[in-house]
């Protein structure tokens, strides 16, 4: 697998962005960080909207890098269709057919409308279509959902899932929402104060215990699982992953799902409890234990090939005399299906 080099060093008004790394040239690279960490500046540098200009840099319009802005930035004087065609006309036609894009984002009924009356979610779908039709080599998404309310966000997310599943164009997805990152990305960059503090495979990076940016309420990992069967009597679905099987409430539409398990929903026992209200209790081994603050520890667990995080008190760690290498049981209280 080849990669895309990102090397950017800019400073403005006291803020310094200093990034030198490589990201995979396929799939979605999530860029996570608090506001002010330099996420948008990084995207603007990649697009050429910021940073050095001159003879040795490629002009913005020749880079063929699609940019999805937070607030769509459609052209108000053009119809939906003309907006979508804007980039296509300027890049010698689309590599994917405009028809495919229109069906992917379900825009057929909107084509002749003016963009002025569109809802936030519709506008964002049009802007994604516009970017796809310019046949970009890379797509940058700058918090594309953050300007939308909860409901509109859920209108757009399924399309991003489809894009992720069906498009071969690499995407850099910037967000301060760990939920969006967990749902959409495969690879993760964590940015803090203009510097990359962590990068790598999504699960492996999420499972790190040494990153305050991925601690606190953000602590948790993801698991890729397969749907096995549905239990009608209790309305539960069984999922299988490398570390065992999990029962989750309700049904699932897709065969392959991504599950999110947050650290505070996992507790540990030395022995398998004989009776517990918790359905999912799996054997695990402790990889490492790290103090999160004066009261709690984050424990990284290995289940099969998958990594989980558990948050436990330091007192429990002491009383159960837990240490790296120990075999334990992980009680997983709740799991959410991320896609």
């Amino acid at each position, binding site marked *: 697998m080849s990669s895309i080099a990102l090397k950017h060093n800019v400073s403005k008004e006291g803020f310094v962005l200093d990034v030198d790394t490589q990201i995979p040239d396929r799939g979605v690279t999530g860029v996570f960080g608090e506001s002010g960490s330099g996420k948008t500046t990084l995207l603007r540098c990649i*697009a050429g*909207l910021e940073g050095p200009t001159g003879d040795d840099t490629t*002009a*913005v*319009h*020749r*880079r*063929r*890098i*699609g*940019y999805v*802005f937070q*607030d769509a*930035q459609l*052209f*108000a*004087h053009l119809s939906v269709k003309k907006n979508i065609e*804007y*980039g296509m006309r*300027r*890049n010698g036609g689309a590599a994917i057919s405009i028809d495919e894009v229109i069906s992917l984002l379900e825009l057929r009924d909107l084509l002749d409308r003016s963009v002025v009356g569109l809802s936030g979610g519709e506008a964002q779908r049009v802007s994604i279509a*516009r*970017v796809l039709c*310019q046949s970009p080599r890379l797509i940058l998404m700058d918090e594309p959902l953050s300007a939308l309310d909860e409901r509109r966000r859920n209108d757009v997310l399924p399309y991003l899932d489809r894009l992720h599943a069906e498009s071969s164009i690499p995407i850099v997805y910037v967000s301060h929402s760990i939920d969006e990152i967990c749902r959409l990305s495969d690879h993760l960059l964590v940015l803090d104060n203009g510097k990359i503090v962590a990068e790598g495979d999504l699960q492996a990076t999420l499972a790190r215990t040494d990153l305050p940016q991925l601690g606190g309420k953000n602590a948790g990992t993801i698991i890729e699982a397969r749907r096995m069967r549905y239990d009608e009597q209790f309305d539960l679905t069984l999922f299988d992953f490398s570390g065992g099987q999990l029962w989750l409430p309700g049904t699932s539409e897709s065969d392959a799902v991504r599950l999110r398990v947050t650290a505070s929903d996992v507790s540990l026992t030395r022995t398998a409890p004989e009776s517990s209200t918790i359905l999912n209790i799996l054997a695990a081994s402790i990889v490492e234990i790290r103090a999160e603050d004066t009261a709690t520890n984050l424990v990284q667990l290995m289940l099969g090939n998958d990594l989980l995080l558990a948050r436990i008190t330091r007192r429990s760690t002491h009383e159960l005399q837990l240490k790296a290498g120990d075999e334990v049981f992980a009680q997983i209280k709740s799991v959410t299906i991320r896609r």
Partner: protein
Amino acid sequence: MDFGPLWLSVQLAFTTTAILIVAGAPLAWWLSQTRSKLQPFVQALVAMPIVLPPTVLGFYLLILLGPNGAIGAWWVKVTGDALTFSFVGLVIASCIYSLPFAIQPMQNAFEALPKKNIEAAWTLGASRLDAFLSVAVPLSTRGFISAIVLSFAHTLGEFGVVLMVGGNIPGETRVVSIAIYDHVETLNYAAAHQLSMTLIAFAFVTLFGMFVINRRQLR
């Protein structure tokens, strides 16, 4: 009615407006976008005709455009004609005199455009010029309408500069404002009334039309 001066005024205003919009739009764009230290300097130069008495402009234009002036002498060499007291000379003078009335509405419209909208055009493959023509200009229609109406009306109404640079040659430089002055001087009030009332009606109708259009676009 004496249509000659009226027709000449319309020709002058039309030519001046056309030149100011085509040449002024890029200047207005530059003024709205640049971070250059020269910006306030150029901005002040552009605004000068608003503040200066027309006689000051007219005086220096007369010198500059005259057969011994820098531009006038060159013009005589190239065409054989003098610039002063000619229609072409009037057009040059009017362009300078009405410049701020064309630049400022366009510049205001360009400044109101979201910067990211233009950046979106760039990332979609539009060059700077392409983005200006395909996004900035069509999104600034109101500014252009104001610029057209104001520079047309302002040119129609000029008097001092025209008198000094153009004089009073029928069919060449005798525009409507000069003609009215002439009629009043010779106590031909009837003719002065006719032309004046025409101008008043015209000024009101165009300004009214502009505000109606601007209001409609606002909604």
